[in-house]
């Protein structure tokens, strides 16, 4: 139901913008970059990451399993999506994205005109190392740089670690709640992000 969601009055942030390189809690060097276009090698790398993803951590049917279904899923949402990828030793190990919540993305004048749905996945071996937080903040920084103001997501309502993470960066519950908790954040959308270097 586009346009009916409750957003916080005040924008959150500023958030850091990619690219950035951080050391995770296990001492691994993690590089976070925005994908200029979600095709070719970047897409291949992210497809590769999802083929390694443990299906016990799927949420609401995504990611799908099997390389072909994964590729189809990413290609379908890929064209107009905003993507940030984290890598370790060159391999994609985490991916965060925003997908436009509209039937006709080509008709958008400004990114701020519409709402964007967020999802983030971190490969199991890289979870609980602080990477999700860094990736999430960089996606929001990158989104704000691009003029995006309204971002929402759903999370299974028993997934307390994820809900805590989303709340910490500024997401608030929209009040829509069944099996999934819906949350929303407002961004400045004016490129006031902090460039972290890289």
């Amino acid at each position, binding site marked *: *139901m586009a346009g009916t969601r409750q957003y916080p009055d005040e924008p959150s942030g500023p958030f850091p913008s990619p690219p950035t390189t951080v050391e995770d809690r296990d001492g691994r060097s993690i590089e976070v970059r925005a994908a200029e276009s979600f095709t070719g090698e970047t897409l291949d790398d992210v497809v590769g990451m999802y083929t390694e993803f443990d299906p016990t951590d799927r*949420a*609401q*049917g*995504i990611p799908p399993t099997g390389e072909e279904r994964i590729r189809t*899923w990413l290609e*379908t*949402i890929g064209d107009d999506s905003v993507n940030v990828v984290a890598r370790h030793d060159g391999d994609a190990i985490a991916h965060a*994205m925003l*997908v*436009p*919540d*509209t039937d006709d993305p080509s008709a958008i004048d400004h990114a701020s005109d519409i709402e964007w*749905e967020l*999802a983030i996945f971190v490969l199991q071996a890289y979870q609980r190392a602080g990477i999700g937080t860094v990736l999430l903040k960089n996606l929001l920084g990158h989104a704000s740089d691009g003029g995006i103001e309204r971002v929402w997501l*759903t999370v299974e309502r028993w997934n307390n670690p994820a809900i805590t993470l989303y709340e910490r960066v500024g997401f608030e519950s929209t009040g829509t*709640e*069944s*099996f*999934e908790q819906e949350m929303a954040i407002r961004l400045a959308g004016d490129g006031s992000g902090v460039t972290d270097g890289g």
Partner: protein
Amino acid sequence: MNVLLGLGGSDESVKTLRRTIERTREVGDELTIVVVEKPESKRSQDEMYRQAVDELEEADITDVEVEKLDGDPGSALVNYAEQGDYDQLVIGGGTLSPMGKIQLGPITEFVLLNAPTTVKLVR
């Protein structure tokens, strides 16, 4: 099998209607259809009722009762299922978000947690 189909007014409900009619034809289930009251849906209760009757006619299925239920959709549906002798309650199985995430609404949740029968979610 004695099947109760619950419909709102969404595209998802139309899909669920068609699949259930198809299945009824194939296996000869007994079918009852109820249309709940969901003012926020794409189709009104009357429109959905009409569509159900029309599609049954087109499929040449005659002995199906179609009813409108007033009041809170989830609880009206569960109450109705409780009153009758149904083996299965069929409802729509969730919508897809722009990302492709399956989303189950509060009515689905209420039905799953309260229905006395087996519940089938149609995808």
